[in-house]
Every structure is written in C-alpha cells, then in structure tokens.
C-alpha cells in the first residue's frame, strides 16, 4: 500500500498546475536593407520592415514616437555614429521605413577594410562585383523578436578581394594615399606611344 501515498501527493500538487501553463511567443519581422558604402567607410542605409497588421499595431503602441523606435535601429551597432536618421511609419503597408548614415561603419585596417555584419546568423545569397547580398537574422527588442533581413551591400567602386569571415565583410580598396591611379599611368603610356609614332622615323617601303 505504500506506493499509494507518493502518487497521492503528486496528484495533489500537479492537479492545479495543469491550467497554469503559459506560452512565450517570439515575434518575427521581415525586412530589406540597402547599404551603400563610400570610400571612407561610411554606410548610407535605406531600410524597410514589413510587419503583420497585428504586430504593426503593437509596435505603434509600444513606440508611439519614431524617436523611441530609433533605438531599435541604432542598438544593432554601437560602434558607429548615426546621422540623418529618418523613420516613417507606413500605415498603408504595415511597414516601417528608415534612412540613415552610419559614420565609421567600415573600419580601415590599413591594407583592407572590415564591415561588421553583427552577431546574428547570416547567409550569403550572392556576390556580383562590388555588390553582396546577404540574409541576416538578428534579435530585436532585447531578444523578444527576430528581424530577418535581406541586406544588399554595395561596396565602393574598385573594391576587390571581397570576402566574409567571422561575421566581417572584408574588402580592399585601391591605395589612394600615394595617388597611384592606374588611369594616369595608362594615359602616360598612350602619350609616350603617340610621341614615338609621331617623331621616330619609321622605315617605310620605297623611302
């Protein structure tokens, strides 16, 4: 009979708790982002989030002003200076649009540049010339939600040896410091060839 007792107490304790279960729901936002990097590592960003109607209303309630929403954009990278932040609610499409500039987004390491893509998961979708397309998944609202964004990153003209390593987009730019632009070298060669052709007598038939 001893076994009964243990079961009794478990039943007593468990019965009221069955109805006590709750669910933690994580929300998800889809977005697109176009990042255009200039020659000195500043990023000019256009970003759009697409929300469900319900989530859109919740967001507007949580962030009654776009000033408050601004932190959700800025908190993703502390190591930049944000400038010209403009955020708009798009009631017609349950979306949020933002444009801003990130000063110092890419860091000059001397022989190459590095753009931090964040700690979230990332998948490289394509790379064509100086354009890289990625899918980034990042936590927002302190981890209560996930932002899944398709990011198109346009690197400066002349970017080469582009690669991603450990959450960093790495690229090289022509060394501007010594002014050795290969276009001038080409022009010099053309001038020299022209001078030679014009002034050096060539042996022609009959002469």
């Amino acid at each position: 009979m001893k076994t009964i007792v243990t079961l009794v107490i478990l039943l007593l304790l468990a019965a009221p708790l069955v109805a006590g279960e709750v669910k933690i729901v994580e929300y998800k936002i889809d977005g697109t982002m176009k990042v255009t990097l200039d020659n000195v590592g500043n990023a000019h960003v256009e970003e759009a989030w697409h929300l469900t109607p319900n989530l859109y209303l919740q967001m507007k309630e949580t962030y009654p002003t776009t000033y408050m929403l601004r932190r959700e954009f800025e908190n993703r990278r502390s190591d930049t200076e944000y400038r010209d932040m403009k955020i708009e609610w798009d009631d017609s499409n349950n979306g949020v649009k933002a444009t801003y500039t990130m000063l110092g987004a890419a860091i000059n390491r001397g022989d190459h540049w590095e753009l931090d893509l964040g700690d979230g998961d990332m998948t490289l979708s394509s790379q064509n010339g100086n354009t890289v397309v990625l899918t980034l998944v990042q936590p927002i609202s302190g981890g209560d939600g996930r932002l899944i964004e398709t990011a198109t990153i346009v690197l400066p003209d002349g970017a080469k040896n582009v690669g991603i390593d450990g959450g960093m987009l790495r690229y090289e730019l022509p060394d501007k410091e010594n002014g050795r632009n290969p276009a001038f070298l080409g022009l010099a060669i053309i001038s020299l060839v022209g001078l030679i052709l014009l002034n050096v007598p060539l042996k022609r038939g009959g002469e």
Partner: protein
Amino acid sequence: MKAKVVTSAMLVLLLVVSIASYTGAFEKDGMGKLEYKVYSKDQVMSGAYKVYGNPKLDFWATKTVLMNDGEGTIKNIRIKYSIDNYAPETERRYPLLLPGETIVDLYYPILSSDVTRLSASTPSNVRITVTYEVNGETREESVTKPLSILGANDFVFSSLNPEESTGSFYDTFSNAPLLAAWVTPSDPVVREFADLGNKLAGGAGASLSDDEAIKSLSGMWELAVRNGFSYKTEGEGYWTGKFAEHIMFPRDVIRDKSGTCVDLALWFASLAMSQGLKAYIVLMPGHAFPLIELPSGAIIPVEATAINQGVSFQEAVQIGMEKSWKMAMNGPHDIIDVAEEHSNGIVPPELPSLEADILSKWGIGLNAGAGNAGENGANNGGAGGNGGNPGGGNGGDDVGNGGWDSYHGTYFSFNYPANWDAPEDYGGYVYLLSPDEEFEFIVLYSRGASVEDMAQAFEGSLVDAGVEITDRQDGEASLMGQSVYAVAYSLRTDYGKYSAAARYFTANGVGFAVIYDFPAGNSEYNQMGEHIVETFNLGG
C-alpha cells in the same frame, strides 16, 4: 611640320601631367585634423561587473569618436583607456584615418573583482589618451571622465541618460537583462536552501519529470512559508529607473527572509535553476515575477510575492497565471531568459564564502519556529522527541506496551504507538506505518485545496496505483469534536482486500485528508486507526 610640332608638344604635356598625377606630385601636401568626442557612462554596476569586459554584450563604458576633418591622412592612432584603481590600461590601435573617415571606438573595461567588495557607490575616473601622427609629428590628446562604481547590490534599471530617455518602459528598463547577474543558482547558500526544500518534499529530482519538478518547487516554497518569508514593498521612486536601486542577491533574501518583488523573483528563479530547471524573469511596469520551465517545456508563472500570505505553491501559480501573467501580457513587458543571458556572459559575481551551516545560523530550517501566518509555531521537528506521552495509558493495551508518543507537525499533531517508527513529513503528507507494514496512517495537507480536491486526489491516486475501489460509502464522522465529511472504502489490491477510512475537511485555508487503511476485517487495526484519529488536533 607645324602640326607635328604642336601635336608633339601636346603629347609631351600630357605625358608630364599623367606621370605627375600618377606619382601624386599635384596632390596638396594636406594635413590631417583630428576631431574627437568622448561619450562616457556615468556609472557601472559592480554586481554585473563581468558584463562590461565582454564586447559581445555591448555594455561599453566609453565611446570615443575620432574624425579626420583635414586633408591629409592621420596615421598610427592609438587609444588608451584605464579606470583608476579598477581597470588597468588597455590600448586599441588603428593604422590610418583618411580625410573624411570616422572611427568609433568602444571601451569594454575588464574590471577587477575588487569592485564586488564595494557596498556603496565609489567615485573613480576613466582616463582616455589618444596619440596619433600627422605629417610625421606625434600628437596626444587626453580626456578624463568621472565614473561611479556602484555597490554590489546597486542596480540601475536604465542605461540611458535622462536627456535620452523618453520615460517609456523600454527606455526605463533598458538594463533589464543585467538582472540575470543577480540570479545565483550555483551559490552554495541557494543550493543548501533548495536541498532543504527537496528534503521537505520527500526527496525530489526536479529535472526528471514535471511532477518531480512541481514537488521540488513546492517543497522549497513550503520551506520559505514555514520560515516566514515575506514580501517587502518597493520604496518610492523604485520603478522610475532614475536611481540606483538596492537589489538583493538570493542569499540576502534567504538571510533576511524577505525581499521586493524583484528580489523574490530572482530568489525563486535561482532555486529553480539550482535544480536544473530553466527560469525567466518577467519585468513589467511596477512588478516582476518568475516563470519556471518544467522538464516537458511547460512554463508556469509564480507570483512570488504571494509568499507574504503564506499561500501554497499551487495558489502562487494560480495567482501568477490569473493575475500577473495577464497583466504583463496586456502591457509593455520584458521576459529575461536567465539561462540564455548566463550563457551570453551576463553572469553573477563572486560572492563571499559563508559558513557551511549558515542556514541554521540564520534560523532557516525544517523546524523553524517562525511559523506561517501566525498559524503554527513549532513543527514536525519534535516528532517522537517530546517529553512524555500525552496519551498516557490511552490505548496502551491496544499496542501491548502501554506507550504512546506524539507527533507535532506544522499544522497538526497526533499520537501514535511509541514502539513504532516515528511518522515522517514528506512535505504535503505525513506518513505512519505499522511495523508489520499492514497498517498505514496518512495525513495529507495542501494549502488552498478543497474537500473535493483532497478526496479526488486520494481516490484518483488509488486508481492510478492499480487499487480498485470496490465499495465507497460516504457520510459524516467525528474529528476534533466536529462532524466532517468521511468516506469508508473497500479496496482490492495486489496484497488482498483492504479497508480505508478517510476524513476530509479544511481549516485555516488548508485542505486535510486524515486516512488510515488496514487489511479488511482486522478490527484491531480499525480500532487503532480510530484511536489515532481521536488524538488528531490542529496546531503543532
């Protein structure tokens, strides 16, 4: 001929210009011009000191913004940081800063563990030195910013400066994840308390099953109730986020037997995690409470402040579900996944070692005399150990040795034959077994349970144990001079036919079932059961 000369002259000019451009001869010999700004936090929290040195967590202490507003390149930039007495010098290097380029450098100080010894805010300084080269010349800029190192129990809810904050919930509680540093499942004091709670629950392996987890949590809760734990209301301004608030580590809650809602939430989450369960802290305007994840993944909210009313664990969950959780979901809230934050690096500081028997020195124990809600004084510690036999010769002939002992529990007492093993309290029920193991006397008790709950639980467990109830006669019977609901059962078990007599009643918000069972037809044990029931009394 003239055209040839002109063309040649033009080509020579183009050649010269091209070569000059290629070699940079036309470039201005510009000079770099460094502009800088330094942003600094006003304070760091000692209790969470480990987070500041972890760049991934991004709780920087100082942000240095360098811009080159000149026309030449700045080279060999070195930024040095230190915090007086608490963080040694560290250096960051950048080879180049081009005209128009910006560098934003963040300082994540690796603070000395000495900060955990601070009991109050202590002033210090962050020192920043920037050295760089412009046109071959080395220059240096130095900045000093004041920094307060807060005491180990001080918590600042917001990381934003007042001028930045909108006063919204999310701005006011932007530091909320750092509360995870106050959840200390590995603290020996917490573990000892949890072990004691498990002992009260009759031994439970919380991570084995939901039932075991609930049993374990109930035991810990019951231990706190027995020891008179209480809820301390928060002071004015606590929730404004403007000031550093005193947050207790769970060991402090155990020592003081009280805490605010935040303290109690951190304490109970720590207890649950010490048993291998996951825990969350829900923070909402003006309140906090813990969520506990059971082994199946089911999550239960616990209104930890209900400890004040001495309610049962089940009731605390019920209040958590019906009030706290609903309130949180109807407004802004933050749910802190403690295990995840710990794995991210938001971990507790080193706490001072305490004596091994610290709980008993603090008056915490199964036999605590604090009582709950003034109901019960001494509890079951006196089992079998009181002086004399209150029953005297009462029933002595029945047991053949003429002696009785008394059991004094938290909620009730009764007498039993002195030559039997003393009854044991398993946290929720007290169990007495005859030496021949044919007679059982059981008292079940549960806060908040009704007569129906108690009867249903007992009968349901019989069925689950494979015991068939062949007959059930309900009526009324006497107990403590009053008439209570009673049921006489005929049972078929693997050991043969048994009879059981149960009396169900509630008193002072606690549901009771006083039951004895014996082999069918054994009148001696039937009388024995009635004798014991006659001695049953409420109060320890």
